[in-house]
């Protein structure tokens, strides 16, 4: 029994270790000016996408439900937190505590939406979640693309019409200016904070999996009918997984929003393309494999940048690499081959295999 405990435990520790070592090494090299600017500009993005990929893995890999709208939750986290920090900046308050509050706001607002969407949808059997989340993601993106939010001496003003319809008084300012989004939110997202958040995310999800609730979530993924027959409440456990996932997607959004000078809800940022990209991270890294998700984020984020020199062939090569890796990690033939290889390796080392 202790061996299995150890296996899960070791798996977790390896991931923690990799994150910390990767951070320290990159940071030291970065301070020495030895990290190419191409990569040093991506450090926060690595963490942002790792967080959302791990979050989605909780839904897709651990809970066995398909969500095609996780970029929507990221969008909610991004805007809700940036509205807050932009407003606080207007009031002249800019410090790390504001960012911590912003992170909590992003997580909670996103979790709330996850919960509200999850209640009706997760009761249904089948792929309803995929359809509803897809629609949700698009709606959220379009709302934030159309909304005008301003502040002046009379307080907040909101409209979906146009900038002038807001009728801001002298001395007022736009928080969200329609398609131009939020400009000038403080750039709080540092590599250190992003790494800490990734660490928290990984910590929470590993410890969620290896406990009562996590076992119930996985049991219902493996066999819903058997799960019900031993008294597991399907809606409750699916909802827990989905809400926690939405919260971390929101946190990824907070990081994203405070990494750039402007925040817009474009198709590229938060559309279904983004949701699919996140899904690709998860599938490529392996369903339910937390470490795999992170590694696949790093690889797939660097790859297009490295291939930039190849111009037109860039996306072609990207696609080919994707297919090859997909086959390598997911084909039963290759999986068996790797299993045998591992067995032989263990035998050579004299390890007894179960």
């Amino acid at each position, binding site marked *: 029994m202790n*061996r299995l405990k150890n296996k899960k435990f070791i798996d977790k520790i390896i991931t923690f270790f990799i994150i910390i070592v990767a951070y320290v090494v990159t940071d030291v090299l970065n301070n020495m000016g030895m990290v190419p600017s191409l990569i040093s500009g991506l450090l926060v993005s690595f963490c942002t996408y790792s967080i959302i990929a791990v979050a989605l893995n909780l839904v897709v890999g651990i809970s066995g439900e398909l969500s095609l709208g996780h970029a929507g939750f990221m969008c909610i986290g991004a805007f809700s937190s940036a509205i807050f920090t932009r407003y606080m900046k207007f009031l002249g308050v800019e410090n790390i505590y504001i960012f911590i509050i912003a992170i909590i706001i992003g997580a909670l607002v996103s979790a709330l939406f996850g919960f509200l969407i999850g209640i009706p949808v997760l009761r249904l059997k089948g792929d309803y979640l995929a359809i509803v989340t897809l629609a949700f993601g698009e709606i959220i993106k379009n709302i934030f693309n159309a909304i005008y939010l301003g502040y002046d001496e009379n307080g907040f003003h909101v409209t979906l019409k146009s900038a002038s319809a807001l009728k801001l008084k002298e001395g007022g300012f736009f928080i969200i200016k329609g398609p131009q989004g939020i400009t000038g939110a403080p750039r709080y997202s540092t590599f250190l904070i992003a790494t800490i958040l990734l660490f928290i995310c990984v910590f*929470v999800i590993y*410890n969620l999996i290896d406990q009562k609730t*996590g076992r119930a979530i*996985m049991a219902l993924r493996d066999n819903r009918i058997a799960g019900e*027959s031993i008294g597991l409440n*399907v809606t409750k456990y699916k909802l*827990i997984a989905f809400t926690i996932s939405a919260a971390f997607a929101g946190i990824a959004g907070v990081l994203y929003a405070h990494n750039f000078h402007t925040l817009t809800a474009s198709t590229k940022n938060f559309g279904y393309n983004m949701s699919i990209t996140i899904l690709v991270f998860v599938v490529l890294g392996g369903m339910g494999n937390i470490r795999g998700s992170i590694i696949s984020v790093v690889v797939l984020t660097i790859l297009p940048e490295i291939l930039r020199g190849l111009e037109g062939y860039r996306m072609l090569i990207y696609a080919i690499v994707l297919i090859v890796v997909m086959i390598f990690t997911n084909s039963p033939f290759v999986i068996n081959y790797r299993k045998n290889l591992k067995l032989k390796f263990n035998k050579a080392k004299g390890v007894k295999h179960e």
Partner: protein
Amino acid sequence: MSNEIVLNVNSLSISFGGLKAVSDFNIDIKKKEIYGLIGPNGAGKTTVFNLLTGVYKPEAGEILLCGENIVGLDCVSINKKGIARTFQNIRLFSNMSVIDNVKVALNEHYKYNTLQGILRLRKYFECEKKMDEEANNLLKVFSIDDLANVTATNLPYGKQRKLEIARALATRPKLLLLDEPAAGMNENETKELMETILKVRDEFDMTILLIEHDMKLVKGICERLTVLNFGKVLSSGNTNDVLNDKEVIKAYLGD
């Protein structure tokens, strides 16, 4: 054996389309009894289990578990009331380890919440330790404790059946329903299974209703039987009497 009645079913009926899958089904099972439900293929045996566990809602009839009517409750609530089951076509949590299959069925009986688990508070370690112990004891009853860390799907068939019974027992039921527990087992495995079922009855004071085609097992351990044919009770009573009933012989041998 005490005379306390654990399960009492009166005129239970359900039909699918025009087919009367189960009609006017009655049964009463006493505490610590091992009761057999037999009948030809398609007779409606599994449907009875599905009615008892809330998978289907009966069109008529009542199901009293220790005197309480449980008709209309869903699967989850019925399990909490005290009925656990296995499935004719095995349904394990196939990607989980053997011990986790059992531990997850213990969920109701160990109280720590999700947050305590995430933060790894003392309560988590205390409960997990006890859960490990109880799960391990259950695996020992079925002599599969040495396979605790194996992924369920990699177990040989006979052991998968045993694990399913262990999992059902982990919910601490009052009544255990076994749907063809010996299916696919060889003679030795079946013999061993019979002993295990008796052991479960004695160690856990369990009341057991089982569906089985293997007559050796039925004769060997069932005290009473009910025979179903075309959804109706053909005969019921003491095992030997029922098996010598002319109607039953006719139904089984097809004249």
